[in-house]
């Protein structure tokens, strides 16, 4: 808590108690807004797309009767354990070959296939009542209906918790925009904070305070859901 309080305190300090750092940031640094909304955009899009991929993927891994399910899950686990820096270069090469370097898609695409969401969903789905899913399957032949009306309906807390974690991860991402993006207008708030000394005025601390707020709001809203959601 102390670093947060000190960041808030420092944001009102410029040789003496002053609002100057805030006015410098809010009125004199227009690129800040672009980067802030870029962060929000990346985080929202990635959360939605990653959940759309992770839920059916985990459902398939849990319910499908096929060989190699455990191996696939193991690969996902290994992927999740890998440090981000290890996958950055292969991702860069792939994106470069697809012509997606310096595009928003270049940031979104590798993130939506992250293993984190799939693993969390998979572990939660393992605890679901299998009989209920079987019963639903007898009612309808549509797997999608079973997924939406039976599985997703029971997994709301897990989905919300995962969404909050993914949002926080994407909102805080730094390496990907620094490596995959060259255009300043596509970069996110983390890069702004990283390069705050390039801007005139003492904008680092007020920018850090604003940077804290969206994730803090999400946490305060969903703190109970988060606790329940991560109980696997």
């Amino acid at each position, binding site marked *: 808590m102390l670093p947060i309080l000190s960041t808030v305190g420092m944001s009102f300090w410029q040789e003496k108690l002053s609002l100057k750092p805030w006015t410098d940031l809010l009125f004199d640094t*227009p*690129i800040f*807004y672009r980067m802030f909304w870029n962060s929000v955009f990346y985080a929202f899009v990635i959360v939605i797309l990653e959940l759309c991929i992770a839920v059916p993927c985990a459902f398939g891994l849990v319910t499908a009767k096929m060989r190699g399910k455990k191996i696939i899950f193991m690969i996902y686990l290994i992927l999740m354990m890998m440090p981000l820096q290890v996958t950055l270069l292969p991702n860069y090469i792939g994106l470069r070959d697809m012509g997606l370097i310096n595009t928003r898609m270049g940031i979104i695409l590798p993130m939506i296939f992250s293993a984190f969401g799939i693993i969390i969903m998979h572990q939660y789905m393992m605890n679901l009542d299998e009989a209920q899913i079987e019963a639903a399957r007898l009612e309808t032949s549509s797997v999608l209906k079973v997924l939406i009306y039976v599985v997703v309906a029971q997994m709301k807390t897990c989905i919300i918790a995962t969404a909050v974690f993914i949002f926080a991860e994407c909102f805080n991402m730094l390496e990907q925009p620094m490596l995959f993006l060259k255009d300043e207008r596509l970069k996110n708030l983390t890069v702004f904070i990283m390069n705050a000394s390039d*801007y005139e005025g003492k904008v680092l601390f007020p920018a850090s305070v604003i940077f804290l707020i969206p994730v803090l709001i999400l946490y305060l*809203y969903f703190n109970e859901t988060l606790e329940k959601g991560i109980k696997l």
Partner: protein
Amino acid sequence: MRVKKSLLFFTLIFWFSMIFLTFFSRSLHNYMLNQVEIYQPKMRMFSLKGNDTEEEVKQKCYAIPSWMGEHDLYVAETREKNGEERIFARSIQVELGKKEGLFYPIMSKDYFGEPLILRSDSVLSDGEEIYVKNWR
């Protein structure tokens, strides 16, 4: 419940402020700057005395209105600040010739016709960011 309501209120305030400032921070910033009008000096023909002789020679020089010659002169120049082009006032010292009619000729060789600040809402200082009302 009370905490949730306060949190909702704070959330709404935060997001509305961010949306509002995204669209209007530039206008608010311009409003807070010193509002100035600029004048683009034009070349005029002046009768000037030669360096070595007393003979008068006709020469084209940048001309400024005589009342401007009695005050400190500032030029408006663009410079990059925080990733975008902004306009700043820069104090200049120019050598003025003999007044002819309503104009002074600018004799300085280091003046290249930059726009001069004609009037401002408040006292200008060197290097101050300004908002030019009649910038083209």
